């Protein structure tokens, strides 16, 4: 007999109070290996207006494709100074920002590898449940074989791929809640 899962409720407009203490926008202190990147973007609603009260959380592997988690049994090293967790509260313009490293490939279910990606969780007033999505990197040859991207209708895949933002390692990726270029969200 299984217990009934607790229902989700919105974070509401005052999420900043609860989330501020564990905001992490700089994930990779000096000494962490990997290609340094910044990931910036804006969250916009169905009217294209900036969402200034969202919280964006990310979860990623290190440059070797290893998660800092006991269930990652790969024979690869974790790095003590890289947890792989980030959280950013959106600004007045809906903007969020992370400075991190590009993750490596991680295993896919059933064999093979997933392309480098960052898992993204989005919370805000007006979302009774959070949203889950992913961001991939432009031009990465592994994208073509990524089993998750292949689940997504081809015409919508671009919403999951960041764009070069000018500057070394700078990427831009926006979260659009509705509209013709609505971001792909996953039932996770």
């Amino acid at each position: 007999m299984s217990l009934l899962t607790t229902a989700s409720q919105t974070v509401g407009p005052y999420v900043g109070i609860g989330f501020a203490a564990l905001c992490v926008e700089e994930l990779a202190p000096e000494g962490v290996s990997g290609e340094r990147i910044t990931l910036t973007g804006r969250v916009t609603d169905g009217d294209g207006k900036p969402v200034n009260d969202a919280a964006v959380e990310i979860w990623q592997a290190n440059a070797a494709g290893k998660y800092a988690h006991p269930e990652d049994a790969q024979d690869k090293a974790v790095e003590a100074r890289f947890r792989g967790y980030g959280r950013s509260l959106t600004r007045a313009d809906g903007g969020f920002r992370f400075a991190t490293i590009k993750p490596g490939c991680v295993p896919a279910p059933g064999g093979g590898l997933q392309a480098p990606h960052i898992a993204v969780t989005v919370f805000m007033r007006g979302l009774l449940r959070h949203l889950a999505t992913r961001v991939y990197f432009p031009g990465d040859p592994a994208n073509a074989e990524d089993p998750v991207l292949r689940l997504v209708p081809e015409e919508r895949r671009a919403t999951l791929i960041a764009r070069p933002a000018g500057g070394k390692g700078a990427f831009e990726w926006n979260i659009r809640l509705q509209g013709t270029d609505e971001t792909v969200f996953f039932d996770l």
Partner: protein
Amino acid sequence: MTGITGYRRPYFRTQPPYLHPDYQSTVKRSPTRPLVLLPHSLTEVTGPVFGYEDVKPTDGDLTRQHAGEPIGERIIVSGRLLDENSRPVVHALIELWQANAAGRYRHEVDDHNAPLDPNFSGAGRVLTDAEGRYRFVTVKPGAYPWRNHYNAWRPAHLHLSIFGIGLAQRIVTQMYFPGDPLIPYDPMFSSIPDEKARERLVSSFDWETTRPDQALGFRFDIVLRGRDATPTESTRS
């Protein structure tokens, strides 16, 4: 490497929908395209690990964050963090935030004309112990008006953010108080279709954790998604 055991999907009607027009903010913020079903991989069964470098032992007592004590009814909120299979979720992070006893949040956007309390910030965090137990000491939040519809008031509630073992267990919820007459009018509470799942968000008064001459106890157990019985596919790197 060993196989990946994913998490079970929520039971039908036990989670709120994205679009729930009675709660107006959902209209422009809920996705309009169907979600893409994502089989769980290593990415979803892992997730951030927190520890005592993130949470001080005193972070769970919201009545002792300032020079003086906050105004209001002191309460102790405790319970267990379990998964659907009744297994305790240990050393997991729970974050709490709330309005003060007058129904006002310490936040620049909150313009409700109720007083702020100089001795109350309204945020705390704890880690569950080796049995999945957690405990907060705080004051009971007040109800407050909001602009969703005419004469709209939110019932008293605590916001709770929980990180389980894996990303697929992440959840943010709200805990309500027993006997609150505002609950049936609340579109957020009512957004959950299943009545049992809805009622689970109401805490219960708990004599056992009530402390004489000090504080009323409320019990609130939190249940995260459980593992599927067997790994479905093996994973090799």
